């Protein structure tokens, strides 16, 4: 998203803790490029070790791969027989994440339908074995169900199976998880920026002695990355950030960053889409064998239902990923076999994203390794000061960050005063303790806000909910409901702008789920834009451009599957946006 805006007049354009003057004079220990779950985790790990860190994200935290996944902290069930150690590690990691942010996590029971009556016992043994591993991820024990019982739990299943076994996966709000990781880094001294694009790496030539020498001298020289030139995409300001070590955590954009240093690397990105259906239609998730034999799933997730995902090689521009009607049809045809009424459901959005999987030739997409690698470019390419972390997946992001941070600390040398890795032990902001039902009800009473809104706020902010309400309600208007579908209070929107780097409507969507409900922004985007404008001192034209970009982004995920209710909603949304007096319209 390359939207340039003029510098706004008045108000705080830059988030708290940052100086608009830039950091040209400062020398960071580490510059991390990429604010997805990986990059943010790297920044957090290093900041917790006491290093001076800068983190830059081109768009917003979670606007890349992280935000397009299906939001679960898996426990590696699929490797249990082939690689139990991996399962153990993933369960432990899931447990660590859950302890760090318990408020963001919710249980998603899965129903495994077993067709063959002869195999039921074997499957049950498998799940009993898994129950042992699950303990580290706070998994609940499996339950065996007869077909009648399974149909009572989920009446729309297609009968014909012999038994069902339940298993438990923790679901999580990935956007908030990502933001909280970045926030924790900032709270431990990191300088964190979103909407900040790297436009070039700062590469210095040096001879073996370490003195900078011009390339023309002809000496075979070490090249060294000493930082990056970055540009604020909203204000247009450019500056240089210097660091001893730069980490490339760009996900699908890893090759693009490396290209800035003249290095040619490839990944094998695969595209995955999933459908977001309005409201929870089922009580449990279901694993489905798709038409091509792959495994897909349908699961309740917060107040939506997700169906996904696909897996196809992608050779295009990572900025241009868009879903295809064929892929949607694939998912619907496959899930129809288990849930016959799936086609009646309202597809609110089709989400498309890229997995930045490592390059492998001759392997089927599904089977491409989900492993990760840390590349030290000094050893590989004679380019010092640059480390890349590539591949991987969200469940092991913390481990990826730990390994990357270890590599970075090693590069920084023994003189560096770095502490041990503490990411496994410390909570994320809001995760310091669990807020229970009674405390939530008390908050609703104390602040006189509706309980449904408080419950969602506690889910997003955990132990900090009280602070959000206190600050947000200190000024007039904090109780206004900006979003009715979720619901979201203006108090929470203010907090997101002031303390969570929300600078655009898209950022707000990721922070508080604005516009993610069935209305897709009809009721809330204008209101949120007004709040954003008032908070940041933006002018109406800037906000108008943001509104249009936001609505365009929503449209992108909807126009690919426009049936029934969605088309009706679109007629209303378009009318309200564009139309003449009767449904509202622009002055042209």
């Amino acid at each position, binding site marked *: 998203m390359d939207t340039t805006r003029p510098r706004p007049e008045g108000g705080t354009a830059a988030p708290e803790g940052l100086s608009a003057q830039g950091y040209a004079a400062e020398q960071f220990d580490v510059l991390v490029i990429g604010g997805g779950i990986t990059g943010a985790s790297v920044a957090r790990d290093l900041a917790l070790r006491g290093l001076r860190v800068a983190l830059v994200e081109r768009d917003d935290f979670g606007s890349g791969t992280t935000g397009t996944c299906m939001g679960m902290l898996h426990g590696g069930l699929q490797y249990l027989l082939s690689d139990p150690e991996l399962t153990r590690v993933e369960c432990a990691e899931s447990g660590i994440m859950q302890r760090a942010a318990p408020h963001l996590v919710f*249980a998603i*029971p899965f129903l495994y339908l077993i067709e063959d009556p002869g195999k039921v016992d074997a499957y049950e043994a498998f799940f009993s074995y898994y129950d042992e591993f699950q303990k580290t991820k706070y998994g609940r024990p499996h*339950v065996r*169900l007869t077909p009648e*019982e399974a149909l009572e739990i989920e009446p729309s299943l297609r009968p014909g199976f012999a038994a069902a076994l339940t298993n438990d996966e923790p679901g999580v709000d990935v956007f908030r998880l990502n933001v909280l990781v970045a926030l924790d880094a900032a709270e431990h001294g990191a300088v964190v920026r979103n909407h900040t694009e790297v436009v070039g790496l700062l590469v210095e030539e040096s001879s073996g002695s370490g003195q900078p020498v011009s390339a023309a001298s002809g000496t075979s020289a070490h090249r060294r990355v000493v930082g990056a030139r970055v540009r604020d995409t909203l204000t247009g300001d450019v500056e240089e950030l210097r660091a001893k070590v730069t980490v490339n955590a760009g996900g699908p954009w890893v090759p693009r960053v490396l290209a800035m240093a003249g290095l040619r690397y490839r990944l094998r990105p695969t595209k995955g889409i999933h459908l977001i259906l309005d409201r929870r239609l*089922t*009580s449990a998730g279901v694993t489905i064998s798709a038409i091509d034999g792959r495994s897909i799933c349908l699961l309740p997730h917060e107040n939506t239902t997700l169906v996904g995902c696909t897996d196809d090689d992608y050779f295009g521009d990572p900025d241009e990923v868009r879903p295809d009607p064929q892929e949607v049809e694939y998912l619907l045809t496959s899930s129809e076999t288990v849930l016959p009424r799936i086609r009646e459901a309202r597809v609110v959005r089709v989400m498309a994203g890229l997995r930045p999987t490592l390059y492998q030739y001759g392997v089927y997409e599904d089977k491409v390794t989900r492993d990760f690698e840390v590349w030290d470019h000094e050893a590989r390419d004679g380019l010092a000061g640059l480390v890349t972390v590539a591949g991987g997946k969200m469940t092991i992001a913390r481990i990826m960050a730990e390994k990357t941070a270890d590599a970075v600390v090693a590069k920084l040398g023994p003189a560096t005063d770095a502490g041990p890795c503490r990411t496994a032990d410390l909570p994320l902001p809001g995760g310091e303790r669990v807020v229970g039902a009674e405390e939530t009800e008390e908050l609703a009473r104390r602040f006189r806000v509706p309980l449904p809104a408080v*419950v*969602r706020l506690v889910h997003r902010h955990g132990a900090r909910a009280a602070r959000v309400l206190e600050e947000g309600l200190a000024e007039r208007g904090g109780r206004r409901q900006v979003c*009715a579908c979720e619901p979201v209070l203006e108090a929470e929107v203010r907090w997101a702008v002031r303390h969570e780097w929300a600078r655009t409507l898209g950022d707000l969507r990721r922070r508080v789920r604005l516009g993610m409900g069935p209305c897709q922004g009809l009721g809330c985007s204008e209101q949120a834009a007004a709040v954003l404008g008032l908070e940041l001192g933006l002018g109406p034209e800037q906000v108008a451009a943001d509104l249009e970009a936001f609505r365009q982004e929503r449209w992108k995920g909807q126009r690919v599957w426009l049936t029934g209710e969605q088309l009706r909603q679109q007629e209303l949304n378009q009318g309200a946006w564009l139309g003449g007096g009767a449904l509202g319209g622009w002055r042209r």
Partner: protein
Amino acid sequence: MTQAAERWQARALRRPAGVARFIEVYRDAGLLPLTPAESRLLADLERCLGCGNCLAVCPVLAALSPIPYPGPRAVGAGLSRSLPEYRTASELVGYCTTCMACEEVCPADVPVFRAVLMVRAKCFEQLALEGREPLPRLKLLLVDLFSQGRLGQLARWGAALQKLAYRRTSTGEMQARLPLALGALGSRLLPPLAARPLTAEFPGAVPGLDPGGPRVAVFAGCLDNYAYTDTGRALIEVLRRHSREVVVPAGQVCCGAPAYYAGDLPTAYRLAVENARVFAETGADFVVTACASCGDVLTGEYPVLARSPADPVASLAARARDVHAFLAGDVSFRPPRACPDPGGSLRVTLHDPCHLARGQGLAGEVRRLVSGLPGVEVEEMRDPGACCGGAGSYALDHHDVAVAIRRPKIEAIAATGARVVVTGCPSCRLHIADGLANAGLARPVRHFVELAQAAYDAERA
């Protein structure tokens, strides 16, 4: 688990072992199974566009009462999106009167008010499973009063006591003799408790006047059985003329409306099964009631409660009728030939109970029957279908709101100049009579069958 908690748990739905275990394992996540009807309902709720038509007709939002009710749209489009969070809405959804006006103006056929019922049922189950009181205290008392058959006892003892503290008004309700002594409750009218319920008054079969007609059983309903027995008697009188026999089975119990609408589905089903058994034994062709709420539950909600098409509850539902539907559609109504009023002419106005007009589609029939009575002139009030605010026990546990909703209704009645208000629901009758009396505009509020009976009696004279 304390004894009280166990008691609450026992009120939740009985589930097969595997399902119960599933619920137990995921109890803190608030996950509960959805019935097939609820599943279908969720699909229907998805059609909401957020247009807000429903907000403009909701009587609760129109009432000038400082309550935090967000309106039907919020329930249908927002609060019912995530089952684990239904319980956060339990207080909010308590404000709905189930008048169904929202459904009448929804361009997308969204069963908005059913979302309220679903949220209530799930809240009830979740709280009960947690060992907590599943309903607010007063609501629970009211539900149990009706569902546990204690009304009979209350009426027997209460009838005598009532005569001490209350006097009968000229319009047939009970008014406190010393209102100030009763504080805030003193101004409210009560229905006249009957020392002998209708079922006791008619223990045997009542021979009908039409040997070729059907056999009819009377579903009295709690209010007509234990209080407004005049209505019950009039109903029997009218039915007698159009049947070969009328019976009033003694074992009938509450139709289950208070429990059902509050979300206590297990109790509602238990009552439905009991009623199905009692009325099956009568062998009657039709089960007729003069209470709009009972009629709507019998014809409209018993099919939802029934576990299968073969469930006897479904069979009872198929034979059930409101008396207006019975007279207009199942038999050839023989209108009386005299005016119900001795003066020879009577101006009346009609209030359409929500559960009669919207719930059972019976507005035209009522008008045809009423204006078919000689000398009776119908003066329509403004918005006769607007909810009166009574809504069964709603007038008791949400009294202020119920009064606020009622205000325009009273004004509209007064503007017609009608001498009698005709309505097919005893709950509406009580609430409207109370409103009229408190406004100094008291006049009789009667069911059509009472007018018909008066007219039949006048024939003989």
